[in-house]
C-alpha cells in the first residue's frame, strides 16, 4: 500500500512502487487531465508537479513520490497566482489547437514562471523544451507565457 498526496489530499492505493505515476493518477484516481503521450519522458504530455517542479509522470515511479510528504499537483489541482495567470493567458490567446499536449504545456509554463518571472524567448525555449506540440502552437505558447509574465509583474 502506498500513499500519494495528490492535489492536497492523501490517497492510498495498492500499486507497485515501480508503477509510473501517470497510471496511478489516470487509472486509480481518474485524473485524466494528465495525458499519456510517449511513455518515455520524451514529449511532456504527462507533466504534473511534484513540490512545484515539473515532472514527467510517465517516467517518475510511484515509489519516488510516495509517502504523502511530496505534494503532487495535476492540471485539475493547478491553482494560485501563477497558475491563474497562465490559464488566463492561454484562454485569451486561444493557444490550444487539438489540446492533447496542453495540460502538460500549462504545467510546465507554471513551473517556468515560478522560477523565472521574466523569461526571455531563449529561457522559454529551453525551459519548455521537453513539451512537444504536434499542432505546432509553439508561437502562441511563447506569447502566452510572456503575457502571463506581464500580468504577474
Amino acid at each position, binding site marked *: 500500500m502506498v500513499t500519494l498526496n495528490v492535489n492536497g489530499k492523501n490517497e492510498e492505493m495498492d500499486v507497485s512502487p515501480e508503477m509510473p505515476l501517470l497510471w496511478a493518477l489516470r487509472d486509480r484516481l481518474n485524473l485524466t487531465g494528465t495525458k499519456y503521450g510517449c511513455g518515455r519522458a520524451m514529449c511532456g504530455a504527462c507533466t504534473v508537479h511534484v513540490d512545484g517542479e515539473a515532472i514527467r509522470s510517465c517516467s517518475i515511479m510511484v515509489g519516488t513520490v510516495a509517502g504523502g510528504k511530496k505534494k503532487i499537483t495535476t492540471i485539475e489541482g493547478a491553482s494560485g497566482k501563477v497558475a491563474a495567470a497562465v490559464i488566463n493567458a492561454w484562454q485569451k490567446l486561444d493557444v490550444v489547437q487539438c489540446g492533447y499536449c496542453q495540460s502538460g504545456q500549462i504545467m510546465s509554463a507554471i*513551473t517556468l514562471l515560478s522560477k523565472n518571472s521574466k523569461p526571455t524567448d531563449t529561457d522559454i525555449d529551453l525551459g519548455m523544451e521537453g513539451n512537444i506540440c504536434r499542432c505546432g502552437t509553439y508561437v502562441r505558447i511563447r506569447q502566452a507565457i510572456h503575457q502571463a509574465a506581464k500580468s504577474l509583474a
Partner: protein
Amino acid sequence: MASMIQPKARRYLPGLLLTAVLLMVSATAAQAQTSTADSLAAWQKVSSVLTHPRCLNCHQPNVPKQGDNRQIHVPLVVRGPAGHGVGAMTCGSCHNASNNPTSRTPGAPHWHLAPASMNWEGLSDRELCLMLKDPKRNGKRTPEALVTHMANDGLVLWGWEAGAGRESVPMPHKEFVDHLKVWVAGGTACPK
C-alpha cells in the same frame, strides 16, 4: 662508537658505509620508478573507465549526452545554475533515484551533470589525469577522497548498473577501484 671498532675494521668502514648508502639510494630509486610505472599503468585502466560513455556522457560542458552512441540528450536539457537543468526541464523531471524499467529512463541518486570544472569531453589522456588530481577542478578532493568517491558514490556506481539498452562499464567495479588505488599509491602519475 667509532672508538669501539677495531682498527682493521675501521679501515673498511668508509667503503662499507658508501656501499650501504649506494645500495639504499639505488633501491629507493628502483622502488620509486616501479611505483611511477605502476601508477602510470594503473592510470591507463582508470582512464579507460572515465572515458566510457556511462561516465563521459554527464561530464560535459553544458548539455549531457546519452546512449552508447553518445548523442546529444533528447529532449534537450542544459546545465542551468546548479547543474540540474532550467525551468521545467530539470534532471529530476524524468530521472528517478533508480533505473525505471517501464520508461527505461536511467536513474541514480542525485542524478545531475558533473560541475562545469569537471568537463572531461575533448581532453587528452594527460589533461584528464591532471584535471582529476587538481583540487581546484575535482571538487576539492584529495587523491584518497577520489578513491572514496569513486568507490561509494551512488551516481558513480550506476555506471555498473546502467539498465537495459545501454552498456554498463565493462571493467568490474572492484577492479577499477583497485587500479585507482594503485594510481594513487604510486603518486597519481600522469602520462606525458
